[in-house]
């Protein structure tokens, strides 16, 4: 399901009006479009090209260079597994393997029902809580493979307090 048509155009015009119409606004605009549609629809990029006077080829270059953007629709739940160094040495790999197994999709892919998108990101800057998994904007700390089902919201109570282990 891709988004097209007049509603996309009007939303894009609205977003562009918040920024000066020059190339330096491009990345900010793409972020806002992404926040609106969860990806960058082709029609939206064409409209940005017209509004800013930047060739579509260059916009395509930017949209594919940066990891924060996707040209394909993304799922309702964006699951980002952090694979920063701290998360890696505390076993982020295992979480990735497990979540791939559970959802049946690989990093960068979206489930066919548009429910989940799985991404592996390099560092979310929450290293003290490694390994970290972020679902939309919620951070899960000290995540282990057996937590993945709960974190993905596939059963168990998603807000259940994890035993952090005491002092003793």
């Amino acid at each position, binding site marked *: 399901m891709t988004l097209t048509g007049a509603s996309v155009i009007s939303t894009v015009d609205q977003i562009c009006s918040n920024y000066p119409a*020059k*190339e*330096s*606004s*491009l*990345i*900010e605009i*793409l*972020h806002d479009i992404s926040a609106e549609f969860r990806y960058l629809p082709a029609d939206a990029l064409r409209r940005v090209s017209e509004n800013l006077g*930047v060739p579509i080829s*260059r916009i395509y*270059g*930017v949209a594919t*260079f*940066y*990891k*924060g*953007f996707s040209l394909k629709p993304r799922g309702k739940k964006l699951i980002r597994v952090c*694979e*920063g*160094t*701290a*998360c*890696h*040495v*505390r*076993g982020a790999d*295992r979480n990735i*393997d*497990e979540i791939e*197994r559970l959802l049946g999709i690989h990093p960068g892919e979206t489930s066919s029902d548009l429910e989940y998108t799985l991404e592996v*990101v*390099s*560092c*979310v*800057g*929450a*290293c*003290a*809580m*490694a390994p*970290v998994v972020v679902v939309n*904007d*919620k*951070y*899960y*700390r000290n995540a*282990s*493979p*057996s937590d*993945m089902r709960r974190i993905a919201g596939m059963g168990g109570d998603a807000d259940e*307090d994890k035993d*952090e282990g005491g*002092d003793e």
Partner: protein
Amino acid sequence: MRLETVKDLEKRRKQAIKNKESVPNTILVCGGTGCLASGSAAVADEFSKQLKKHGIDTKVQLQVKRTGCHGFCERGPIVTFVPSGILYQKVKPAHVEEIVEKTVKNGEIVKKLVYRDPSTKQYVEQYSEIPFYKHQTRIALRNTGQMDPTSIDDYLARGGFKGLAKALDMKPEAVLDEIEKSGLRGRGGGGFPTARKWRSAINAPGEKKYVICNGDGGAPGALMDRSIMEGDPFDVLEGMIIGAWAIGSDEGYIYVRQEYPLAVVHLRKAIETLREVGLLGRNILGSGLNFDITIARGGGAFVCGESSALMMSVAGKVGEPRAKYIHSTERGLYDLPTVLNNVETWVNVPVIIENGGERFAQCGTEKSKGTKVFALIGRVNNTGLVEVPMGVTLRDLIFNIGGGIQRNREFKAVQTGGPSGGCIPKELLDLPVDFDRLTEQGSMMGSGGMIVMDERTCMVDVARYFLNFLMEESCGKCVPCREGLRQLKGLYDRIVEGYGTMEDLKKIEWLAEDVRIASLCALGKSAPNPVLSTIRFFRDEYEEHINLKRCRAGVCKALTKLVIKDNCIACGKCIKVCATDAITGEKKKVHVLDQGKCIVCGSCVEICPVDAVQVEPASKAVEVPS
């Protein structure tokens, strides 16, 4: 109200201090990312609710503030009391009522929330007495965790903008002299002297000059920039305004990683506030300085931490670096002279101006002055952000502040400098940490990530991890980096899969050297550091992987199998954590691990209280593919 002059500023500061003093007590609830993830927002809400319920007037008696990161993320959510200095850790909403009834109303301590030193078993009530904080010297982190990051009055009450007021009263040249005297070096990685950078931009021809703050912090394991931007945004902006005065700039950018949404929100709010009060805009405090700052969000590319790539990105382009025959101080953003410093460098500037460069230079080592913030993370007990004087030894950092290795395992190495840095082994634990000493050992300061590794970390895997990261993040512009890293990664894959030969190891060494020499930017040039430093200090582990097909840490899956030994106490913990139901067992019977189902994830090794789950080499029939 607009602050037209320094007098107006001081008047507002006086008012802010008065308002602060009119409420004798404050509860600070940490709102850093770490504590938020542990539920600190609900704790803060519960405080407001409970105070109301108990009829405590938040305007007269006690107020609750959400602050930036306290640094001690491991123990979050952190709640501290001002002025009593009590710190409670791991506070849950359910604890709040008890805290209000005991601590707030009667001044009693809730003992179960007090930090207990794991080694001495002593309870430590006072914030400043906890070993994690006791050994720190906080300059860059002076405000984070101590104030509401979105309140300019909180910032003023803590002495904010004193540096700016003083700078604007000085000639730009005199400001530069103070920075020079301080010996400040860039905190983002390279350690380039800040004053020299500024002077070069001043002397460069160009009708317009730019000031940029690098808040990309894209190196995995560098969360200090995030914490400072979230917890003390005014400080970063103040540093930039002083920089603009010194070099004669009227436009600044702050480049923030898109993964840091809270930092963007707080900076945006701070910039709006400064525009309202006239500390950004035209004729700041009547000095004649016109300066404004715009936020540029990154798009998620590690290479954009490199200065020339970052400037391309600010201009809305693909973030590819350029060859730096001409420094960006002379031709940077839009080919005009540009000063780019990292977040931590900028927050040091107001302090240097306020107290003088000489005072700043009293701290640190001969060539590295001041303090450095480190992200102490990985397999260490007290993870979090720590700030110490330059020259502190690794041992002090990891064992005194960090409280040693988790589960009392053996320390193996510490990785500094992010993907561009190297691994330092335990023989060098007494190395004083400064820019030059780390570089001598084939690592670097980087932005200050300090990832502690223990016996359960495989050094071959660590090197491969960084290679994989850099290969993914290589922008692809120059061949040595784009292709060289891919080939290196392929060689590592063979080793961890059990197909490696000593010939491969030789190839890795010379290819790494080529990538270092021939790459265009710092990403490629420093990419071999993790490879070469692990080979230098942990060659035996490579040889084990190659010759014995063994990974002693039990990380490389193809070379590892897990077995449960007879000392199993049948507690059932491993059964619970096993994601593939490979472990079976009942009470009082040694548990059994089904090799067919096991995916060697190692969760059981981590959870086992008696180390009954052991790592053994998988009996791998070695077939070298032709």
